[in-house]
């Protein structure tokens, strides 16, 4: 690099108005959707993926699918081709159509379990946090339920009923809600010690009003984050239940069922298992990304609490 003798430009501009160079480029404020995506990339990516998957599930009949239950015994276990995009299974059913329709089961189970478990956990957690004498009893029961792996508990519950989507949802929700109850209880106990809650008690606010006005709005954020994790976990549990034949009836295409069908042929026809597995992974990834993004957006310290 050569040193060029550039004329000093500085004095002239310094005498009059200080013409300071911009050392730091001005911070560009991004607005709208791009601004949001820039600030919360995880929410944007996870949310976009999830919206695509939901649209795919809703508009499944319009996406070039055939009836996912139609059998074609003469066209069994075909490799992916123009006719069968993802191939066909050992009964000649179109795997592409089955995977697309299967998204419905996974998403419905995921969301329904997230909502049910959150509501049940919210109620139990609020009671536990507010009614001191009930707290130790309720929490010991919750501890007992949490000591059983969720899948095992769900399998046991499914053994009591026959396989159907509502029953799967109920079984997984029961297995998942103690975690929510524990979270809500801990948030309630923290909030109760907050001076503004004590001030509300001291200024004569009734307990239901304190819950509605001061406690609930502050539990929504951590609860939403927890709900996304439960949603992801429920989707996996549902697939496992279907895979081992304890979940959705085989007639309903769900990702777990498709994988169960392809299990025996895994080494010769891997595509039967591959496509539903990929979709399950993408969906769970999308939900988890969304959850992580929400957690960071809501409260960076939450990472330690969950």
């Amino acid at each position: 690099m050569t040193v060029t003798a550039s004329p000093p430009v500085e004095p002239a501009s310094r005498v009059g108005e200080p013409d300071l160079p911009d050392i730091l480029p001005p911070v560009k404020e991004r607005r709208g959707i791009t601004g949001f995506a820039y600030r919360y990339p995880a929410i944007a990516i996870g949310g976009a993926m999830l919206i695509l998957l939901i649209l795919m599930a809703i508009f499944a009949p319009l996406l070039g699918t055939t009836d996912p239950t139609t059998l074609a015994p003469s066209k069994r276990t075909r490799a992916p081709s123009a006719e069968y995009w993802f191939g066909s299974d050992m009964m000649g059913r179109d795997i592409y159509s089955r995977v697309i329709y299967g998204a419905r089961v996974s998403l419905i189970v995921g969301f329904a379990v997230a909502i049910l478990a959150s509501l049940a956990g919210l109620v139990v957690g609020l009671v536990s946090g507010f009614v001191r004498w009930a707290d130790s009893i309720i929490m010991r029961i919750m501890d007992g339920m949490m000591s059983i792996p969720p899948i095992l508990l769900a399998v046991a519950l499914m053994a009591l009923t026959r396989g159907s989507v509502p029953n799967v949802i109920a079984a997984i929700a029961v297995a998942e809600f103690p975690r929510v109850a524990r979270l809500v209880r801990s948030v309630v106990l923290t909030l109760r010690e907050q001076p503004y809650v004590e001030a509300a008690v001291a200024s004569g606010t009734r307990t239901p009003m304190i819950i509605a006005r001061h406690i609930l709005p502050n539990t929504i954020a951590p609860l939403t984050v927890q709900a996304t994790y439960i949603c992801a976990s429920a989707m996996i549990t549902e697939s496992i239940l279907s895979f081992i034949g304890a979940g959705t009836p085989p007639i309903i295409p769900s990702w777990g069922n498709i994988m169960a069908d392809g299990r025996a042929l895994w080494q010769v026809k891997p595509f039967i298992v591959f496509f539903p597995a990929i979709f399950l992974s993408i969906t769970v990834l999308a939900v988890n990304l969304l959850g992580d993004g929400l957690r960071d957006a809501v409260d960076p310290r939450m990472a330690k609490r969950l």
Partner: protein
Amino acid sequence: MKASVSPVLEVKDLTKDFPIKKGLLGRTAGHVHAVDGISFSIGESETLGLVGESGCGKSTAGKLILKLIEPTAGEIRLSGQRIDGLGYETMRARRRTMQVVFQDPYSSLNPRMRARDIVAEPLRNFEALLESEIDTRVAELFENVGLRRDQLSRFPHEFSGGQRQRLVIARALAVRPKLIVCDEPVSALDVSVQAQVINLLIDLQREFGVAYLFIAHDLAVVEHISHRVAVMYLGRIVELAGKESLFAGPQHPYTEALLSAVPVPDPTIKPSRIILQGDVPSPIKPPSGCHFHTRCPYAFERCRVERPVMRETKPDHFAACHLRDGAAA
């Protein structure tokens, strides 16, 4: 203690022991004697300063009086009527006469509520008012505490610390209580803002005749606002007297040491500090006899054995010290 009709607040032998739970079954392994039999009263439009160092139980005393925690023993009378032992709902109805200002103006306001709704909360609890009436009352309260009307619909984070404390005071004042328990109301604020808030409290007392239980550790602040001062040490009140009398002639060695620690804004005066030895003993196992004997420069045998009682050592000046036994007689 002046014998008026019936004092706004009267506390007798108020005691709070917190059990220390240990082990799986929650066996009680001991007690923290946070408040150990304190008695005092506050008259109408009077300010009683309650001072003491951290952990002496002054904030616990405040919460006991507010019935945010249940006392272990003792009596609390609000305008002559006992409020200790009242159920939640009966107590709720009595809360109208007693409100609170907490130390930290950041955590004592719900971050999700607008200023107007925060101040309106006690009003809604006790008075059936139309929305328009609430608006008028809240606007009046804003004026009383020196906030502007255009700040009504702001959220707490849009206010400064001093403004937030004004908001807290407006909320406390909303239902025209007879007593406001101020738990270190200015110690979280800048010194310049402290003075404003203290003067606001004094002005409001003149205007509305409210009494204050003013809990603080800052003696200069307490001297400025209080009519009478109670000094607490390790859960007990050791001295209780009118402000002038207490600051001019402390009767208890602990008060003496506290007052000697106050900086004097005059460089020509050589400070003659009394430096106390050791730390405050644990309230789990407080010392026998006089709690202060472990650190008292004048302690003698009797202090280790016998708990001193409050005696009137000078007119309207009470101290719990064996040194003063017979001094006034």
